[in-house]
C-alpha cells in the first residue's frame, strides 16, 4: 500500500518548525511504523535530504525510547502498543498519517520527533529508589511477599518511562509516571519505610520540572503503552499525604530542573 506521512520537521529548539508531507510507496502491513520511517529515510538520504530524526532502540516495546504522536494519539491508535510495535496493517492504502513530537513544557525540543525527557530521570533521582547499598541485602526469601502484592508492584513497575502519559495529558502532568514508581516501590514491604519521604521528594521534583497538575482526566492511562492503571496516582496522593503528616526532617536537596525556572 501507499501512505502519506505528514511529519513535523524542526532542525533544533530555535528553529520554528513545520509539517512536511512525504509519500511512501511499497508499505507492507507487517512493517512497523518505525520501519516505514526507515524506508522513507533511506530514500531521503539518497535524494541528498536530511532524514527524519526519531528515537528508537529496542524496537520491541520495552526500552521506552520511541514515541511520537500519531494522528493525534500518543503512540498511535492501538491500545497498549508502543510506536515501534505499531504495524502498518492498522492503516489503509492512501491514508495520510500525521506524526509530531511529544509537546510539553518540561520536554524541550531537540529535533524533528525527538524531545529531551531527562526531567523523568530527575524525578527518579529525587527519590525513586529504595535506599539500600550493594552488599546490605538479607536473604531473599527471608521476607515473604504475597503474590497479590508482588503482582500489584509489577503492574506498576512495567512503566517504560516513555513520556506518552505527559504528551497525552492536557495539563502535561507526569502523575502517571511518578505514581507508577511510587506504587512499584511503595506497596512492597522493602519500600514501605521510605514511602512518605519518597513521595514528597518525587512530587516536589515533578513540580519543579514544570509538569502540570493532575486533574483526573485519565488521558494518560489511555495512551500508556503499558496500560499503567490510574490507581497509581491515588497511591501517590496517599503516600504524599502520609509523608506530609509524618515529615520530621528536611527533604533531600532538589535537582536542578531541565527547564530552568519552569
Amino acid at each position: 500500500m501507499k501512505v502519506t506521512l505528514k511529519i513535523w520537521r524542526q532542525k533544533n529548539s530555535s528553529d520554528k518548525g513545520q509539517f512536511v508531507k512525504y509519500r511512501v510507496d511499497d508499505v507492507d502491513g507487517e512493517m512497523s511504523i518505525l520501519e516505514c520511517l526507515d524506508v522513507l529515510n533511506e530514500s531521503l538520504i539518497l535524494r541528498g535530504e536530511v532524514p527524519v530524526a526519531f528515537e528508537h532502540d529496542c524496537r520491541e516495546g520495552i526500552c521506552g525510547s520511541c514515541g511520537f504522536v500519531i494522528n493525534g494519539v500518543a503512540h498511535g491508535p492501538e491500545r497498549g502498543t508502543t510506536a515501534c510495535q505499531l504495524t502498518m496493517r492498522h492503516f489503509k492504502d492512501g491514508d495520510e498519517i500525521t506524526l509530531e513530537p511529544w509537546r510539553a513544557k518540561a520536554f524541550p525540543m531537540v529535533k524533528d520527533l525527538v524531545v529531551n525527557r531527562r526531567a523523568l530521570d530527575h524525578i527518579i533521582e529525587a527519590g525513586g529508589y529504595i535506599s539500600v547499598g550493594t552488599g546490605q541485602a538479607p536473604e531473599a526469601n527471608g521476607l515473604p511477599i504475597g503474590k497479590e502484592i508482588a503482582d500489584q508492584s509489577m503492574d506498576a513497575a512495567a512503566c517504560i518511562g516513555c513520556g506518552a502519559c505527559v504528551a497525552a495529558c492536557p495539563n502535561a502532568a507526569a502523575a502517571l509516571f511518578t505514581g507508577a514508581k511510587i506504587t512499584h516501590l511503595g506497596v512492597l514491604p522493602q519500600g514501605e519505610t521510605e514511602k512518605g519521604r519518597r513521595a514528597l521528594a518525587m512530587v516536589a521534583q515533578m513540580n519543579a520540572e514544570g509538569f502540570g497538575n493532575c486533574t483526573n482526566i485519565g488521558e494518560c492511562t489511555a495512551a500508556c503503552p503499558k496500560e499503567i492503571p490510574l490507581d497509581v496516582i491515588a497511591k501517590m496522593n496517599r503516600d504524599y499525604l502520609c509523608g506530609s503528616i509524618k515529615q520530621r526532617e528536611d527533604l533531600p536537596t532538589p535537582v536542578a530542573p531541565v527547564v530552568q525556572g519552569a
Partner: protein
Amino acid sequence: MKLDANIPSGPIEEAWAKACFDMKLVNPANKRKHNIIVVGSGLAGGSAAASLGELGYNVKCICFQDTPRRAHSIAAQGGINAAKNYPNDGESVFRLFYDTVKGGDFRAREANVYRLAQNSTKIIDQCVAQGVPFAREYGGSLANRSFGGAQVSRTFYARGQTGQQLLLGAYQALERQIHAGTVTMIAKTEMLDLIVVDGQARGIVTRHLITGEYNIHIADAVILATGGYGNVFYLSTNAKGSNTTAIWRAYKRGALFANPCFTQIHPTCIPVSGEYQSKLTLMSESLRNDGRIWVPKKKGDTRPPNQIPEDERDYYLERRYPSFGNLVPRDVASRNAKTMCDEGYGVGKSGLGVYLDFSEAINRLGEKTIRERYGNLFDMYQRITDEDPYKVPMRIFPAVHYTMGGLWVDYGLQSTIPGLFVLGEANFSDHGANRLGASALMQGLSDGYFIIPNTIGHYLATHKFAKVENSNPAVQEALTTVKSKIDTLLSIKGKRTVDSFHRELGKILWDYCGMARTAEGLQLAIGKIRALREEYWKNVTVPGTGDDLNESLEKAGRVADFFELAELICIDALDRNESCGGHFREEYQTPEGEAQRDDEHYSYVAAWGYTGPNSAPELNKEPLEFQYVHPSQRSYK
C-alpha cells in the same frame, strides 16, 4: 604475549575469598580522589557505577541513549539464574558451575565460572532488597522456572520482563548515587576512543550525540560495559544501537579480543518477514518449558498446522534428545531447526520456520496459567504476526542473539591494558562457546555489583597516577584520530546508504559464519568483507553535518568498526579447526551430526592482538585447564 589470567591458587571453592583477601585496599578517605569512568549503563555498567559510587569513588557513567534506563539489558525477557535451590531439586553452586562449563562446551575458564555461581545467590538477595518484583508463589516465597540446558529450576523471573526489572533496580541505585553526587551521568554520549598514557588506560574521547561536541575525560581507570556486538550481523535480537565501537577502539589501542567467532544464535525468534526488516524479535527461551517444537513429517507440507494429525508431526527434539527434549541448549536447538529447514521440512511462507506449539500445555494447564506465564510474549507475537498463538502454533526460527566473545580479561576483569576493565557481555569471560539461558543477566550483575568493586580497588591501590593534561600527545592523538574519522565519513558523499552496506555485511556473515561454517566459506567471506569495506570507504553517503543530532553519522562510525570486526570473526572461525558450542564447523562433526571438539589442539582461549591496519592480527593463546569438570562429549540425549 604471555597471557596470565591471575587465577588464585588453591581449591576453587576458596579462590575468590582468597583473592579478595590478598587484594590491597584503598583507604576510604582516598577513594573520592580517584576518578573512574564507566562506559555503559546496562546491568554491568549500571551496577558497577552505582556500587563504586557507594564506595565513595568519583565516577562518571556514560551511555549513548538519552537515559541510563534504556540500556539494552532492559530487553531481557526470560530470567536470571541463581543457585538458591529453593525448589529442593538438587541445585547447588557446584551444579550451576558444572552446567555452565558443560553448556559452554568446555571453552570457559573454570575459576571464573565457579565464582559466578557463588555470586549468583547474593544477586537475588540484592535485587529483592532494591524492590525488584520477582514472581512469587501464593505463600510469598520466590518462584522459579527451568530454562534450556538445565534439569533443575533455578531461574528467577519477573513476568517476561526480567531484564527490565533488574535494570530498573540498578538504574535506581545509580540515580541514588547521582543524587548523592558520587556519580556524574553523561547520557547521549558515545565513546569513540580510549586514551592510553604510558601503557595505562587513562581516559576516553567522546562525542555528544546532540551537539556533536568532542570531549576528553581523564581518569585513573576505565571500565567498559558496552554490551555485545551481535549487530555485526545487521539482523539480530539486539537493540538497534548495540555496537562494538568502544571495545573495538580499545582493541586497536592494545586490548586483546578473545574468541570473536563465538556467537550465539537463539533458537526461538520470530522469522524474518521482509526486506525492510530492521531487527528480529526474540520469543523467550522460557517458552520451551511448555511449548513443543515440531515440523510436518512430510516435506513441503502446506496444510495449516491444526490440520496436520498428531502422527504426521515430527517432534524432532524430543525424538533426538529424549532426556532434555525441548530443553536442549540453544546451539543444539538452533542447529536442529536449521537442519530441518535445510532438508525441506520448514514451515511458513519462506520455509524458514518451525512450529512451537502450546496446545498440549493449554489442554493440561488451562489457558489462564499459560497466559500468566507468557501473556506478554504471546501478545508481542500476535502484534507482529497477526496470529493468535493460543490457537495456532507459533512459527519460530533462529536468530543472532548474544556474543560470547569479547575483550580478553583476567580473573580480576582487567584487559591486557592496565587500568582497562571490561564487564558484562563486552568481555569474553564466563560462557565459553555457548551461553546458557538466564546466565547473562547473572554475569552482568556479578561483574558489576560484586567483582569490580573489589578488583578495581586493588589496581588503584597498587599503581601511581601522574596528572594527565589535555595537551598530552597521547590525548591529542586520540582526539585527532576520532575527528578525522568522522570528517572522512562525512566527506565521502558516495551513492549508498550506511544501512545498505550494513545489511550486505550482515548477510555475508550470516551465510558464511552463522550456524554452520566451513573453511572454504570463511575464506570466501573474508574476501567479500574486504571488498565491501573498500567500497564502503569510497561509496558511502552520510547526510547532514557533524554538529547536531545525526543518526546516520553515528551508524556510519559503528558500521566502519563492524567491518573490521567481521573480518576478525571469520579469521577466528577459520583458525578454530573444531566445532564447539555455537561454533559449528561442518568439517568437524560426530556421525550423529553433533559438534566434535578437538581438546588436544583447541582447548584454549584465542585472544587476538591488533598489529596495524593492513597486517594480520596476532594470535595469543590462553590454555584452558579443567580440574573439576572433566571435558566430555556433551550429551543431551
